[in-house]
């Protein structure tokens, strides 16, 4: 059963080669593998931009992988929710149940050399950029096997080409512009995807980043994940203009149905191509919905009705939407999909149990300082507030032994 849902990390390991061979294979097995997708007209809205093609071709295997990734992310988020309520995860925790299509759609449209940076709602992106479910859940539980060795928690997860969850609202946007600058400086054919919420879109630093990105024509995709509610407030109550894709003013924009993984995929791919043909930055708005509260301390029903949530769940769910595609195009049968769902649940449960069984970091001072510098590039001593707090990297202890244990 498990082989049907291959863990992402395993796919990742083989990715550079497989990606290449897949591109070649497309030519050879065109009629077998390729299918045509027709997106509804309402998928895109544009601002100073030509809309992407509504009809495009893609591989069956891409579609299947997208579906499997989405159900794994959802299961992972549900497991996080349960662990939080069993008090095994403490502190901050922001879940993306309902918003899975964005992480999955973007990842399939870009390659490993592109960079992604996002806000604190980062579990799905971390998984899609190559971290295992176990590593994400272990990080949440503060285990040594976590992506940040159990020291980062929910908001501080990283992977190769993924510059993390960022705890400060909106602070990742200038950083994303910086990542784009690095791509341009090194003359690489890559772009940076910077994600932020509709709440963060009103931050001043967003517009500073927009200005510099346009001024220097940086390969930056600014992606607003508009889930319609900030922390406790509806977008319309906090924003003078809720057309976030028009917020770039001098930067063209594209509004995308963020509840459809295929629309997200097509838009992200379009954005990347558009930038790489030298057009400068672009603003995307993925219109999506989160089923849960803003964070674990928000019941999520004080500023919206339960009927609204149920309506979105039953009508617009990204997973059900893609499932419908798979069934309509005869790519998979109902039974197959059911078996994947079960396998995904089993896989996440197993990873969860493994994560829970793995040990917490040892209570050693050494562990506290180990990630300040890349090993080997440390300064001899790291100054603390007091001379007593000065840490010696060679000695792996405080420079002056004044502490009495």
């Amino acid at each position, binding site marked *: *059963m498990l082989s049907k849902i291959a863990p992402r990390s395993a796919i990742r390991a083989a990715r550079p080669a497989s990606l290449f061979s897949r591109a070649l294979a497309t030519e050879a097995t065109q009629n077998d593998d390729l299918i045509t997708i027709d997106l509804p007209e309402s998928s895109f809205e544009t601002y100073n931009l030509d809309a992407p093609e509504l009809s495009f071709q893609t591989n069956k295997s891409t579609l299947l992988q997208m579906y499997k990734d989405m159900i794994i992310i959802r*299961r992972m988020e*549900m*497991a996080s*929710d*349960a*662990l*939080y*309520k*069993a*008090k*095994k995860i*403490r*502190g901050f925790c922001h879940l993306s*149940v309902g918003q899975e299509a964005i992480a999955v759609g973007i990842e399939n449209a870009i390659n490993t050399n592109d960079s992604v940076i996002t806000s604190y709602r980062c579990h799905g992106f971390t998984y899609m950029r190559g971290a295992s479910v176990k590593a994400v859940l272990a990080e949440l539980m503060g285990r040594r096997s976590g992506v940040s060795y159990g020291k980062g928690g929910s908001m501080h997860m990283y992977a190769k080409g993924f510059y993390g969850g960022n705890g400060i609202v909106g602070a990742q946007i200038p950083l994303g512009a910086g990542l784009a*600058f690095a791509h*341009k*400086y*090194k*003359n690489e054919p890559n772009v940076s995807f910077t994600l932020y919420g509709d709440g963060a879109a009103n931050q001043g630093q967003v517009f500073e980043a927009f200005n510099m990105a346009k001024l*220097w024509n940086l390969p930056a995709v600014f992606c607003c994940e508009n889930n319609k509610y900030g922390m406790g407030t509806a977008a319309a109550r906090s924003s003078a203009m809720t057309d976030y894709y028009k917020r770039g003013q001098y930067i063209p924009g594209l509004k995308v149905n963020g509840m459809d993984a295929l629309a997200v995929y097509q838009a992200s791919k379009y954005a990347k191509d558009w930038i790489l043909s030298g057009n400068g930055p672009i603003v995307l708005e993925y219109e999506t919905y989160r*089923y*849960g*509260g803003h964070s*674990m*301390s928000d*019941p*999520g*029903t004080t500023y919206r009705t*339960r009927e609204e*949530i*149920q309506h979105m*769940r039953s009508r617009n769910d990204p997973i059900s939407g893609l499932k419908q595609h798979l069934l309509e195009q005869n790519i998979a049968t109902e039974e197959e999909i059911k*078996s994947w769902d*079960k*396998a995904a*649940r*089993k896989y996440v*449960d*197993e990873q*969860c*149990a493994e994560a*829970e069984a793995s040990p917490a970091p040892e*209570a050693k001072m050494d562990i506290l300082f180990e990630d300040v510098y890349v090993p*080997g*590039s440390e300064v*001899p001593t790291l100054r603390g507030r*007091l*001379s007593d707090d000065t840490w010696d990297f*060679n*000695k*792996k*202890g405080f420079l*002056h032994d004044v502490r*009495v*244990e």
Partner: protein
Amino acid sequence: MFSVRAFSRASTGVVRFQNVNVRLFHASVLRAAATKFGMPAMSPTMDKGGVVEWKFKEGEAYSSGDVLLEVETDKAQIDVEAQDDGILAKILLPNGSKDIPVGRTIAYLAEPEDDISKLEFPKEEATEAPKKQEPKKQEPKKPETAPKKASKPISAEAGIFNKANPSQTLFPSVSTLLESNGISKEDALEKIEATGPNGRLLKGDVLFYLGKISKESAGAIATYFKAHEKLDLSNIQGAPIKAESSDSATEAKSSSDAAVPAKPSIPEPKVIKQSFDLSSIVELREASLGKVKPFTIYEFVSEAVKKSQTYALQRHPVKSDFYDDLFEDIISIPSRVDRFKVNFKINQPESKVTPSVGQPSIFDLLTEVKSAPSTESHETPTVEVELVINEQVADAEEKAKLFMKKFDEFVNVT
């Protein structure tokens, strides 16, 4: 919001996984197992809660997003949503149950297609699990406090416990404590020794007076402040003058203090090796006889090494709209940083092998001179270049490759 199913699974652990396994491979197995649904913690501070009302009856099916029950905490009543489809198989704790510890099983759930009449209920074990965890967490704290007391005697006790200043306003914490223990203010100022600044009574002083904490604890803060009230600059050391001498400094330190742990073992350094044919140099040497100052192969190779090294460490601008020397100065590693060490060995066919690592000895030079006429043999000399890369520098390997490229250009002049 609250994933009922995932929660119960997370708490029941392995038992459940095996069951899924069985059902996936043998569809004919009829008896499905119910999953436990534990009392959820609806806020990080919630330890206990009550069931206000179950919104579903036993045997009813629910879908994701439905409110399963209303839970009461010390602060509010909160709806618990199901995130997965399922059937409420059995309710263990009815409406109105109070003070249920978080994690205790309050109901059994089943999957949508399960037949409830044939459901297998797991044995009640999980209830005890969360309770067991609590004492476990407290255990490591205990041994910590014991040695602390033993090993930290208050050295300058005399200066720490002073007579209380009679004209002070008591802290609220102090006056409350005195009040609740029936001590008058006058009595307190008379009898209790103060550790605060200028004879101020602290809460710890009263607690010590009441015999609730040890003298060490009462004096700990004052001792710490006393130790740090004067800026102690005695332990400031001059920085080592050269970066290289930091090694010798640590060595000296470790020899003086045997307890210092050994330096972390450095992984094997990466080495790039390449061998070059020197026949074109031999030809070049013959052709240039009389035109330029005569040179030996060794001289040529060491000069080529030097020149290639200079070339490699030079800045090589990337082709970019933004390339700027000033900016590059900020972001790049300075050229003086050691990227790699060069070792080379010239193999000459006629004469004996002349190993020369770095600086040549006088014997190298002598053999070189002697072997000079013998280079007219048919076999050609070669040079083996070995670069030991300093992997701590990010661009070391890139620079080493540039070195090899340039060196190749030097020795293959045609």
